[in-house]
């Protein structure tokens, strides 16, 4: 590449670099700034130390997020495997069917579960018309996990499926050729090779699950307050930006630590980087 054209293509990246600095880096610095100042702008660590009382909320968020992610993985993995075995025509139809609910607004998807699980909702209407006592379905932790699984399941299926599709089929045949039975091949070839898909699926489900507020609001009632709910309240109703920022700051760090651990784990195990 001669000097002039390379200079020009370098300049092409400049607007984005400025933009990314202004609207990705600076906002994160703002979070840190608000997290470590009080409402007069003076430095303080009281916001952070004060978060101790939210420890349970953090733990609950992470726990429910983990449960939802694992449930997604358990449901998604066999389906991805089945899909990867199909012919190309069926594959594209199935991919489309999995993506279709994804493109529907997640508020509406969550909302529909609310109307199904409600005390006077569809399920309870059926149950009572059969003469049974209505069940407490909504406003439970189970309902929150269900909402997370329902909303984010496609984000687990698609990455695993994509990785399985890319896997060289001759590897499976080679393993069979070397005398592995079906289970051996699945355990020693298929699963290790799909680790990158599992890792990215895990990330794509875990991060929005941990930080959600709408799902817990609609399906969890007052009994299941997640960290996202508290952050949302600070910014939208309580107007305590410093507390909200410090919560966001800690949440962000917690998630990055989780992801780093995940990546580390997959590095050692499958030798793949996300």
């Amino acid at each position, binding site marked *: *590449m*001669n*000097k*002039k054209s390379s200079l020009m293509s370098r300049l092409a990246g400049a607007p984005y670099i400025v933009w990314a600095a202004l609207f990705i880096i600076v906002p994160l610095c703002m979070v840190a700034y608000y997290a470590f100042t009080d409402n007069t702008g003076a430095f303080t660590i009281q916001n952070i130390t004060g978060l101790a009382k939210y420890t349970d909320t953090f733990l609950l968020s992470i726990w429910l997020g983990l449960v939802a992610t694992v449930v997604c993985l358990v449901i998604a993995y066999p389906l991805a495997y089945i899909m990867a075995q199909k012919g190309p025509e069926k594959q594209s139809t199935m991919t489309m069917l999995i993506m279709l609910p994804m493109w529907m607004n997640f508020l509406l998807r969550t909302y529909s579960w609310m109307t199904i699980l409600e005390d006077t909702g569809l399920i309870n209407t059926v149950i009572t018309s059969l003469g049974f006592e209505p069940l407490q379905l909504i406003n439970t932790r189970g309902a929150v996990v269900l909402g997370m699984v329902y909303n984010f399941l496609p984000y687990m299926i698609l990455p695993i499926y994509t990785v399985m599709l890319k896997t060289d089929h001759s590897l499976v045949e080679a393993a069979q050729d070397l005398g592995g039975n079906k289970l051996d091949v699945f355990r020693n070839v298929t699963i290790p090779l799909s680790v990158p898909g599992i890792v990215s699926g895990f990330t794509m489900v875990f991060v929005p699950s941990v930080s959600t507020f709408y799902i817990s609001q609609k399906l969890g009632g007052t009994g299941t307050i997640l960290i996202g709910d508290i952050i949302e309240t600070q910014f939208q109703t309580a107007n305590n930006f410093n507390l909200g920022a410090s919560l966001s700051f800690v949440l962000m760090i917690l998630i990055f630590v989780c992801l780093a651990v995940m990546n580390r784990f997959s590095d050692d195990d499958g030798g793949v980087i996300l």
Partner: protein
Amino acid sequence: MSNNIIELKNISVAFDGQQIIENMNLYIRDKEFITFLGPSGCGKTTTLRMIAGFQEPDSGEVIFDGKVINGVPPHKRQLNTIFQRYALFPHLNVYENIAFGLRLKKTPEKEIKAAVTEMLDLINLRGFERRNISSLSGGQQQRVAIARALVVKPRVLLLDEPLGALDLKLRKDMQVELKNIQQRLGITFIYVTHDQEEALSMSDTIVVMDSGVIQQIGSPTDIYNEPKNAFVADFIGESNIIEGVMRSDFWVEMAGHKFKCLDKGFGVDEEVDVVVRPEDVDVVPVEEAMISGQVTSITFKGVYYEIIVEIKGFKWMIQSTEFQQQYSTIGLNIEPDAIHIMKKSQYSGLYGDYSSFSEEFDELSDATYDEDDE
């Protein structure tokens, strides 16, 4: 005015502190077919890109038709390039690919049509105008690339390993075709390859390069028959490179025998490298022979047998039409005109005998795609 179309004067190029080309001087005559030949990373592609304008030298001058063209961007140079993988524009059909350069020059549509049609005739692809690039075979794409470059009537065509991606049979055909096109149009071709056979069969002049330095410039026969050093001798064809001592003018001692040769002008008892081509060694009865040795292996090659003979610990390769029993002792004679003496160089001793020679290995290294020094 000289008939040199391109001159390179004291050119040096370095990437990331690594010297790619070192003080190169080269003259290219108008209308000749010149080939830069050398292994990967020898600087041949960099030299070509410098002439095309994609690379600026760190020092030295690039002269085109008597004018220094350093700093002139590629689109203002009167030369065109055929790229390794053709670089055809995938969104345009065959006709539009060829017409691309003319359209930039705002040539009237009528002239474009005539010129493109003429080119399609030249490359034997009449009727392919509307075809999509991806529907063409490798050889056809190659020819479109040639037409696309030639239609703008360059003074010089630069070809960067243009046949590298084709299979053997097609490569041979294209070699003949390229040579024909060059002679018919009467323009200069600068060709880059790592394939010595290609270079020998097509070129008027070959420039053998290694580590950014020109090792030898000459006609194919000169290069083959009178390699300047062990590198050239080894790179071009098969050769036995033996250490010898010049006892006096016309007499060289090697493998324990004093041979008559045609070379002179070396110092008395000067150590030299001696090149003997495998096909120039005659097999004779032991009692009449100059030297003799034991056959360690023999391979049938179709027209001849390839025989490895061990003489005083050094394994020679010879080619003979007669079969020899393995482990038998045979006699060898070498005529004076089959012996070529070279001065010692940095390459002396790098190319050993044929003891570790293996067909497979040779082919493997030949087939390796030459990414070269970009």
